[in-house]
C-alpha cells in the first residue's frame, strides 16, 4: 500500500478557496463574444423571403402568408444561427440571453411574432390599405373636380 499521490493536492485544496461560481447569488459566468443565445426577430425589417425557413434544421420558423412575415417557436431552436447568417436584411440576430427555462413550453418568452401580434399587424395593414385607398379616392375626386 503506497500513499496515494493525490494526498498532498487534496490537503492543499482544503486551504484554498472553492473554484466555483455560486450562480443564483452571483452573476453567471460571462458569455464570450459571438455567443449564440436566444434568437431575436425584428418584424419591421423582415421582407418575408422565407430563406430562414429553408435553412432551419429544427423547424422553428413558420411563414404567415397574410402578412408576409414569419413566426417563431423557440422551443425547438438548436441555436445553430443559420437563419441569422442567411437573412438578407438582417432581421434576425443572436442575443446574449440564455436563461430560458420555463414551466410552459408555449411561454411568451419562446415566441416571436405570434397570436395577437399577427392580428394586430393585419389590422394595421388593413388600416394602411384603407387609408391609402381613401387617399387615392380623394386625390381622384380632387383631380375630377379640377377638371
Amino acid at each position: 500500500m503506497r500513499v496515494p499521490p493525490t494526498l498532498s493536492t487534496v490537503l492543499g485544496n482544503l486551504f484554498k478557496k472553492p473554484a466555483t461560481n455560486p450562480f443564483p447569488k452571483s452573476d453567471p459566468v460571462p458569455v464570450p463574444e459571438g455567443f449564440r443565445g436566444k434568437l431575436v426577430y425584428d418584424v419591421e425589417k423582415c421582407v418575408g423571403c422565407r430563406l430562414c425557413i429553408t435553412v432551419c434544421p429544427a423547424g422553428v420558423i413558420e411563414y404567415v402568408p397574410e402578412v408576409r412575415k414569419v413566426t417563431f417557436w423557440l422551443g425547438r431552436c438548436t441555436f445553430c444561427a443559420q437563419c441569422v447568417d442567411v437573412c438578407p436584411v438582417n432581421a434576425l440576430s443572436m442575443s446574449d440571453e440564455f436563461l430560458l427555462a420555463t414551466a410552459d413550453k408555449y411561454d411568451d418568452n419562446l415566441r416571436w411574432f405570434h397570436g395577437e401580434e399577427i392580428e394586430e399587424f393585419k389590422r394595421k395593414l388593413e388600416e394602411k390599405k384603407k387609408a391609402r385607398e381613401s387617399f387615392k379616392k380623394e386625390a381622384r375626386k380632387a383631380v375630377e373636380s379640377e377638371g
Partner: protein
Amino acid sequence: MNLIYATLGFIGVYVYVSLVSLLWEGMDRKLVARMQRRMGPPLLQPFYDFLKLVGKESIIPRDASRFFELAPVLTLATSIALLAYTPLGFEPIFGTKGDVIVFVYLITLMGFFRALGAISSGSPYAQIGAQREMVLIASKEVPMMLALFAVLWRLNGLGVSRPFGMGTFYEHNVWELGTPLSVIGTLILLFVFLLWLSSEIEVGYFDVPEAETELAEGPMVEYSGRHLALFELASAIKIFVSASLVVAVFFPWGVSGYLGLTGVTALVAELLFHTLKVFAVLFAGMSLFRAITGRLRINQAVSTFWTRLFPAAIVGALLLVIDTLGVVA
C-alpha cells in the same frame, strides 16, 4: 430507580449521537467538497435529506418479502442497542465485564440486517450487493477482533475491574505500557483499526457493497422513503460508533481530570471531548480516505484483509504478547 436513570441516559445518548452523527455527515460532505475545490452542501444537509426521505412515499417492490420492511427497523434498533455498549468518553451505560463480545456481535449484526433487507427486496442488484456485504463482513471483522482482543487481554494484565469490558479503556490504555515493542505493536494495530473503520463505514477502498457507479447503490437499491431514512440514520450512527471504538482503544484520554470537573459536568465535558476526537479520527479514516482513494474490486478488498491486515494484526498482537511475556528481554 437506577434502571430508570440508565434508561433516561440511554435515550439522551441516543438523541445526542443521532444529531451529532448526522452533523458529522454534513461536515464530511463539506470537507470532501473543499478538498475538491467545491463549496459543498450546507452543514445541515443530512438533516434536510433525512426529513425529505421521511416525508416521501416508500415503495415496496412486488417481489419483496416481509423482511424488506422489517430490516430497516431492525438495523436502526441494533444501532440504538449498540449505543448502550459504546464507550462515549465515559464507561458505556450498560457496560459490564465481557461486553466487548456484545459490541462486536451487534456491529456485525447491523451489516447482516442490511444484507437481509437487500436479499428480501427481490432485486438482483441488491442481492449482488448483499453477497459482497456478507463477504466483506466475513473478512473485515477477523483482523479487528484479533487486534481488539489482544489489546483487551494486555490491559487485563494491568488489573482492571471489568475484564474484557468496553470500560476497560478508561482505566488503562495501551500507550502507558511505554516499552518500545508495545508502542510498535500498538501503532500496527492502530493502522489495522483505521482500515477496519474505513471498511466498516464503507468509504474509499471499501465502498464495495454500495458501489454507486458499478452496482447502482447495491443493497440499498430498492429502498425509498422512510425505510431508506431509517437506514441512513442507522449508518450515520454506525459511523459514529465505529469511530468511537477506535477512539476508545487508542485515544481514551479525558479532559475532566485536567479541568477538575466532577459529576454531570464531567460527563458532558468528556462526551464533548470524545466527539471532537471522533471527528478527528473520522477526518482521517473517512473524509481523507474517501477523497484520495478509489474503490477496490471485491476480490482485491477481501485479499487486502487476508493478506495485509490479518498478518498485520497478528504481528501487532504478537508484539504485545512478546512484550508482556518477556520472551525477548
